[in-house]
């Protein structure tokens, strides 16, 4: 009877101890992690930065809304997939192809989209995360332009699931590469479109605003620079891009928002303003360096 009782007590205390780590424990683990292979801060902290990276879909939507035509030559050809044999290349190009798929979907270019879906599925399988990419449903939705909203929804959910899974499996490094690849491809497409439309101020501003995301990407890569040579090399490339972005100036003036409730929704009026100072020379330099980094990724 006593043994059963002790067993019960132990089970309860073990269950109580399996909750979230305390801040102190997390901090000590962060200090400890420098001794072993892996990032220099906790995966939880990395996850908090990763969640901030915006979806490349937002940029594709901006390009379409501003009346820019679809151009498949801006994208990484789906047949390049045979070149990607390491997990490093697979994760980066999963992000690149993810952005390309979003771009083809927004422009309803289903034939190209199908090629990117197949490439994404193959890369995801290669990284053992193929179970999160529902190619059958996506393929079915892609055949009819009336399904665009559902198509965008399910692809976004699939990519969110992939990111979440990688982070819960202590594979956040792949998530960092996946998001870096996706972001860089979106920047590349924007630079290409901006070069073809040199008077479009909105596109120039969008390129300038990427300074904020670049800071996050640089920070994320820096956590792996001592443990992963490939990521250290990518960080060096990103730092070169950052030196150009250092010339871009973003000024922000805060002013309290106003609001009203319309049909049960709180409609906010943002009265703050911001200005982005970026020159055509900056755009040219950003385009050149982005293209150079991208060539290394997709080759």
């Amino acid at each position, binding site marked *: 009877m006593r043994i059963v*009782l002790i067993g019960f007590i132990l089970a309860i205390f073990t269950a109580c101890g399996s909750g979230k780590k305390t801040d102190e424990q997390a901090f000590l683990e962060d200090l400890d992690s420098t001794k072993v292979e892996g990032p220099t801060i906790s995966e939880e902290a990395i996850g908090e930065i990763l969640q901030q990276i915006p979806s490349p879909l937002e940029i594709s*939507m901006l390009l379409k809304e501003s009346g820019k035509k679809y151009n498949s030559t801006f994208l990484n050809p789906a047949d390049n997939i045979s070149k990607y044999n390491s997990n490093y290349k697979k994760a980066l190009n999963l992000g690149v192809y993810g952005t390309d798929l979003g771009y083809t979907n927004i422009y309803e270019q289903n034939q190209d989209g199908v090629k990117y879906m197949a490439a994404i599925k193959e890369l995801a399988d290669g990284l053992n995360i193929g179970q999160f990419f529902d190619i059958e449903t996506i393929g079915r939705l892609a055949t009819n332009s009336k399904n665009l909203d559902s198509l965008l929804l399910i692809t976004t959910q699939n990519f969110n699931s992939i990111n979440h899974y990688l982070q819960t499996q202590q594979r956040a490094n792949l998530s960092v590469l996946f998001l870096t690849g996706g972001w860089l491809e979106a920047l590349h497409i924007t630079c290409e479109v901006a070069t073809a439309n040199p008077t479009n101020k909105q596109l120039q501003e969008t390129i300038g605003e990427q300074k*904020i995301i670049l800071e996050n990407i640089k920070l994320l890569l820096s956590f792996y620079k001592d443990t992963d040579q490939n990521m250290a090399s990518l960080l060096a490339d990103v730092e070169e891009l950052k030196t150009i972005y250092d010339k871009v100036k973003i000024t922000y003036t805060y002013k309290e928002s106003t609001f009203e409730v319309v049909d049960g*929704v709180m409609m*906010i009026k943002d009265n703050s303003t911001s200005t982005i100072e970026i020159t055509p020379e900056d755009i040219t330099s950003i385009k050149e360096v982005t293209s150079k980094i991208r060539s290394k990724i997709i080759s």
Partner: protein
Amino acid sequence: MKKFIFIVLSVFVLSTLEVIGQCNSEALSNQCIPKLITGFNFLKSYKIEKGAKEFVEYSYVFTKGTQYMINICAAAQPTDGIVVSLYDSNRNKVATSKLNGQFISAIAYPCNTTGIYYIQYTFDGSTAYCGGSALGFKR
């Protein structure tokens, strides 16, 4: 001795009941996705569960010229006392879903400044301290 066994078993049963009645914030956040108003494209879903802190917080880079919508779903209507507030990168409050004591289940924010924004969920008279939320965008 019998009394002690009774106490231990009671603790065990109570903790089991707590697990059974736990918050299903994932289901609630999934419920929120189709509730985004037409025209908004889904970006992220967020789980809202009160932990050690008084609030639950996420962050995301919002882009100038884009309108964002954040909604709240909870077991009790409209939001079970869950309030969403939005803070800019300097921690200035730019939006909140509570107005004159009224809990609004969705906010629409047309962003004028690209930057990191903090999406903070707080509990004001909540009973379950459990909910879900979705973030969408439109140009």
